[in-house]
């Protein structure tokens, strides 16, 4: 449950999670970055905006978060044992 600015609560639905890999500066296994894209949908609009949007009155948020941020480790080797342990714990 999330809360809007006017205090009303609503439910949010996660439609999917995709992983984006960037390898533009690829030199080795540790030289690419992974980004998590969360697609979250819900009734984020307030009532005055929804009165002008009769059909498409929900919004979907594309949240882009880097893997090192979501695992709360900054500047670490993504192939280290510590990261792999957290991946197994949180993501699998």
């Amino acid at each position, binding site marked *: 449950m999330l809360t809007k600015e006017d205090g009303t609560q609503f439910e949010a639905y996660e439609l*999917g999670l*995709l992983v*984006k890999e960037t390898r533009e500066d690829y030199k080795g296994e540790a030289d690419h970055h992974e*980004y998590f894209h969360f697609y979250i949908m819900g009734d984020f609009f307030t009532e005055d905006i929804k009165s002008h949007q009769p059909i*498409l009155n*929900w919004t979907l*948020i594309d949240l882009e978060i880097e893997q090192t941020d979501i695992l709360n480790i900054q500047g670490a080797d993504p192939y280290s044992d510590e990261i792999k342990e957290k991946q197994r714990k949180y993501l699998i």
Partner: protein
Amino acid sequence: MPTPNKVLSHVHYLVDPCIVTLSKFNWENNISIAANRLFDQFAIIDNPHILGPKQMVTYYVNGIHFKKQEDQLNHPYYIKINHDCFLQHGRNSYVKNELFYTLFKRATNERQTILVKTTDYDACKCVSQNIRLDNSNILS
């Protein structure tokens, strides 16, 4: 899961709430999502298991290029498919930065892969003008 330190970007897109509200208990199984290689476009497929008069197989395309300005939300492109068909996300190893979907026809057991091309992003006046469906690349 720990709270992430920073969210790189978050963008709002308009969606139809019917894809969740009309199938309150099956929306996790009905909805699938895919993105192109650069993640500036994404596609949502809604394949309802129980089709009613308000529920149809739907394909949504939305992305950053559908936004005209920072404070304006544009309508997504979507198509509705007949009840005897269902959709699946597709991929192509040659054209990587485009969206594909495969149309399966239950009655004739045919399948058709369709490429969704979104060109002329800057001239974004109407969504239907920016997207053209190319039916020429039928795989089988």
